[in-house]
């Protein structure tokens, strides 16, 4: 958390009727920072953005901009501009009229509006399109007009509600960098809502992951990616492979007991609050190594090794992706060379890319759960996702 917050949310809760969409959100955003609100659909990220913008009034909590309480202020008195997912351009106005409308509302002189609109068109590469109607523009151009309309009034905070989700996949990649570069150049504070992990990683200084109306974790892209705080965050950040293990902490290390498919191994605890019992191990397909079972050398210290059998192979590009049966679970592992289906293999996961979390039932052991068994159906689901 930054020491000096420009935009500050304190205990913001909101809901429609009886359902609670946001549940006590505390968040501080520094001036000039680019923050991505990341989450699955229905997690409350758009509601949070709309609460910041002033279109949803929170049931509890406060929103402050530069120390000024704006919780009850109307949307236009907050110094913020929102870019809508649908762009929400006015179809009866030209590009120039769309961009200049905010200035017209502020009663700026006509010459000043024309100058500012020209500046925006130049900034966003819309030169010569000023007289077109939105219907005559491509998706990418519309998106830039929406951005220009928001930036023309020189807001302190730019709010982006999934602005790239309506673009072609190829354009999206370049627009990501364009928006990021623009935000840096203008030094504007930006809050960006997205469900696309990669988009958030590429664009944001800080990622805030939301789950069921609460902040699941926040931090720099590399922190969230490499040190997920919960199984949910790990799965959301791409560690979809899930295997259950048994182990216990012991003098700064977590000792994983050998199971039907894995060898015993001890990994550094690094301050993780792991308790004795079942743990959920999560890792990414590309983080694990796949070796032929004949490879004789023992795994390096702190590396978890499973023995498994290849079920199927596919080629998504770059690396071969293998579905490997490990005990009752199926995990996906990438490798530079293809293994044949049915081949016996070893899967090695170095400790720094192995995420361990106490399984929910670990604190109160469920009698139905055997030490060897896993939650087979759930892990299959996770690895196929």
């Amino acid at each position, binding site marked *: 958390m930054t020491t000096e917050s420009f935009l500050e949310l304190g205990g913001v809760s909101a809901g429609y009727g009886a359902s609670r969409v946001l549940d006590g959100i505390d968040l501080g955003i520094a001036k000039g920072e680019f923050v991505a609100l990341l989450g699955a659909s229905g997690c409350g990220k758009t509601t949070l953005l709309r609460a910041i913008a002033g*279109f949803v009034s929170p049931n509890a909590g406060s929103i402050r901009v530069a120390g000024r309480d704006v919780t009850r202020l109307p*949307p*236009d008195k907050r110094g*913020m*501009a929102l870019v*809508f*997912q*649908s762009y929400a351009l006015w179809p*009866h106005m030209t590009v120039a009229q769309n961009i200049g*409308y905010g200035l017209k509302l502020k009663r700026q002189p006509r010459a000043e509006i024309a100058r500012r609109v020209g500046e925006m068109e130049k900034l966003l590469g819309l030169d010569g399109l000023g007289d077109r109607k939105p219907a005559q523009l491509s998706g990418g151009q519309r998106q830039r007009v929406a951005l220009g309309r928001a930036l023309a009034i020189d807001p302190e905070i730019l709010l982006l509600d999934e602005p790239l989700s309506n673009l072609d996949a190829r354009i999206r990649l370049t627009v990501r960098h364009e928006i990021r570069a623009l935000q840096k150049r203008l030094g504007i504070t930006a809050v960006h809502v997205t469900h696309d992990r990669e988009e958030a990683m590429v664009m944001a200084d800080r990622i805030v992951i939301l789950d069921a109306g609460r902040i699941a974790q926040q931090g720099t892209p590399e922190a969230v990616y490499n040190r997920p705080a919960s199984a949910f965050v790990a799965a959301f950040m791409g560690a979809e492979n899930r295997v259950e293990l048994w182990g216990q902490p012991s003098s700064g290390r977590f000792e994983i007991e050998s199971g039907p498919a894995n060898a015993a191994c001890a990994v550094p605890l690094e301050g993780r609050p792991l308790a004795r019992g079942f743990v959920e191990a999560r890792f990414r397909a590309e983080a694990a190594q796949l070796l032929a079972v004949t490879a004789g050398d023992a795994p390096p210290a702190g590396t978890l090794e499973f023995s498994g059998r290849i079920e199927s192979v596919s080629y998504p590009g770059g690396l071969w992706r293998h579905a490997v049966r490990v005990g009752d679970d199926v995990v996906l592992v990438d490798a530079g060379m293809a293994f044949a289906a049915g081949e016996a293999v070893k899967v090695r996961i170095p400790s720094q890319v192995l995420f361990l979390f106490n399984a929910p039932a670990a604190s109160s052991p469920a009698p139905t759960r055997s030490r060897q068994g896993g939650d087979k159906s759930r892990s299959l689901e996770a690895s196929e996702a």
Partner: protein
Amino acid sequence: MSKRFLGLLLVLPALAVIVLLFIVPLAASVVGAFEVEGGHGFGNFVKSVELYRGDTIFTVLIVSLSTLLIGLFSIAIGGYLTLGENPRAVAILRWLYRWPMFIPFIVVGQILRTFLAKNGLMNNLLISAGVITPMQATAFLDWRGIVIAFVWKQVPFVALLVAGAMASIDRGTIEAARNLGASRLRILIEIVVPQVATTLLVGLILSFVTMMSVLSVPLMINAQSPTMLTADIAFRINAYGDYGVANALGLISLVITSGVAWIYLRHTMKERA
């Protein structure tokens, strides 16, 4: 039997209905408008212009004024239903505004006749409220009564169309304007109405044509001169059996409504281009 012939046979009943019930009577009255004693000519039109020039202008003015007022009221109602922030008031308005649509024109005429008369309910209320004295009470049963009746009856219809169109525009376009600081009135005029302009125009043109053809309201409220063309047509036929002038007046009404339809067509063509 060829397939082509069978297809023709299938559309024949529909075609016959259109020809017999629509095209033939229309053609007959168009031809009838030019029939004078001992041949064809413009006699009926000369007579129509001489006798009913004032009524024609009266009709066009009344219907145009009513159309304008209907447009304003239905924008106001649709706008409040779309942008209103008091959910209870919006719900009440939504429930209330449609009622006049289900009341026939003749009943509207009857209701307003008793309401607007010199000793009618409106003046009685105004007098007992002390707004006017009994000496000042006048009947509204002239052009004002007709306009009030038309607006009262047609606003719900146009408002229904307009409110539906307003409800289906992208809410984001309204919120984007609010985000930039537009007041609700500006949003209505500059953002919402332009996006529903075509629907509004269609509703107003349908209302215009409907009002041009209403007989009961002018008969009930204002049958003296000047009155509307529909009342004149009825009078020519009932009093004189003069179908020639009646047909000529009908054709004049048709030309007026065609003019409005032409405005509409030209507008939609321009929009598509």
